[in-house]
C-alpha cells in the first residue's frame, strides 16, 4: 500500500528514500525537476517517457537520470 512503507533506491548515485509503489512520473515530481530535458534508466535499462506512469520503482533500484551536456 502506497505511503506506509519507504524504500531505498539510488538516484544518480545518491541513496534516496521513496514511498513504496511510486512510479517514475511521481518520482520526477517529488525530485522537483525543473527541466523537462532528461531521460531515465532503471538498472541500466532505458525507460521511455510513455512508460513513466506504469513503471513502479522497487527497493534497491538504481536509477539514472541523464540530461544534455557538451561532449565530443
Amino acid at each position, binding site marked *: 500500500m502506497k505511503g506506509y512503507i519507504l524504500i531505498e533506491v539510488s538516484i544518480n548515485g545518491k541513496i534516496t528514500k521513496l514511498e513504496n509503489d511510486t512510479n517514475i512520473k511521481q518520482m520526477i515530481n517529488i525530485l522537483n*525537476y*525543473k527541466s523537462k530535458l532528461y531521460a531515465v534508466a532503471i538498472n541500466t535499462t532505458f525507460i521511455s517517457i510513455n512508460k513513466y506512469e506504469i513503471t513502479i520503482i522497487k527497493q534497491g533500484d538504481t536509477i539514472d*537520470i*541523464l540530461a*544534455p551536456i*557538451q561532449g565530443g
Partner: protein
Amino acid sequence: MKNNDIWEIGGKTLSSRLLIGSALYPSPANMEDAIKISKSQIVTVALRRQSSGDDTSGDFWNIIKSLGIEVLPNTAGSHSAKEAITTAYMAREVFGTNWIKLEVIGDLYNLQPDPFETVIAAEILIKDGFEVFPYTTDDLVVAKKLANVGCNILMPWGSPIGSGKGLINIDNLKTILKIKPKIN
C-alpha cells in the same frame, strides 16, 4: 573539400564534412561562435547525470537547437554494449535524432574502443532504426564487421585520443577505404 561538394551522410545532405565538438569551450557564447565560424553542420553532444536543481543543460541545448544544425549524441562513458545501447536510447529520446556516435571504451589508458562490444551494440541499434557512427580503431577486420552489421559510417581513430600524434597509421585508413569504398 570544394565549395560545391555535397556530403550525403545518415540520410542528410550536407555541404561541410567537418564535425565539431561542443565541449571544453570557455563559455557557451564561445561555443556558439566557434560552431558558427566553423560552418560545420554536425555538432557532437552528450548526456550526463543531472541533479534536480541543475538547469544548465537546458541553456546549452537551447543554443545548439538555435543553430539549426545536426546533432550527433555520443555514448561516452560506456564500457559495454549494454551500457552503450541504454545511453543510445536515452539520447534518441532527449535529442530527437536516430544518429548515435557509438563509443564503447575498452581500455582507460588510451581510450581504445572495445571492438567486440562495439560490433554487438551496433548490430542491435541498427536493427532498431539507429544510424550508427561507430568510434573504432583503424583495424580493417573490425571495420568490415561493422559494415557487415549495417554501419554506413565509420569513425576510425587516427591515433589515441589526446595523444596529439595525428594519423599514425594512414595506410590502415587507406586500406579500409579501398576495401569498403562506399563507407562514409
